[in-house]
């Protein structure tokens, strides 16, 4: 699946987009975040305050308990500040 990062999540993670294949057992957004944080200090830092990070699956907002099964594109970003 494709992961996207925006704003300061992107800056801290040091990457804008990547293709990943999370292991079996990573079933929800929350679990994906835990797995991402273990990948290195940049990701640990980007997701340090996981509770403030928003997620979207296939371009729709989701909560952290949402299933990632079948997702093609998952995005992580801070609370939005447009308008």
């Amino acid at each position, binding site marked *: 699946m494709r992961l*996207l990062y*925006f*704003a*300061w999540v992107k800056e801290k993670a040091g990457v804008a987009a990547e293709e990943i294949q999370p292991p079996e057992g990573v079933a929800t957004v929350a679990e994906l975040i835990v797995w991402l944080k273990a990948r290195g200090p940049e990701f640990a830092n980007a997701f340090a305050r996981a509770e403030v990070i928003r997620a*979207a699956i296939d*371009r*729709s*907002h989701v909560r952290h308990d949402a299933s990632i099964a079948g997702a093609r594109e998952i*995005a992580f*970003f*801070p*609370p*939005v*500040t*447009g*308008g």
Partner: protein
Amino acid sequence: MIRVQQEDFDVGAEIARLRADRTDIGAIVTFLGTVRDQGGAVAEMTLEHYSGMTEDELSRIEEEAHARWPLQASLIVHRYGSLRPGDNIVLVATASEHRDAAFDAAKFLMDYLKTRAPFWKREDGPGGPRWIEADARDETSMTRWDKSSAAE
């Protein structure tokens, strides 16, 4: 109609296009958001967005407004990229036969846009770049559109 674009927009031309030659519209409410310099603290601003989701989200928000109010036309235009103090950021316009529907729908569109549309502002000022933090009041503003209280 929704549009996400880098280039500026002309408020008068947008309103004229919304009205076209219609003679059944009684009220048009517009909201124009512009870049504030905040007393010199902001020299430039960059608006990042999630291309694709932005359009989807704005369309969903617009549909929701049409489901709630009898609107004859509506428009959301939002810019991204590099902006300077005084520049246009966003234009929301709603047309209806009566003013309350137009006012409420425009306010609703802005409240939803502020908490749902995937845009992020980075301010570049004398103190360096800074990502704007979301205003907790924006989340609170959303609650005024809960179905129960909207039925008042």
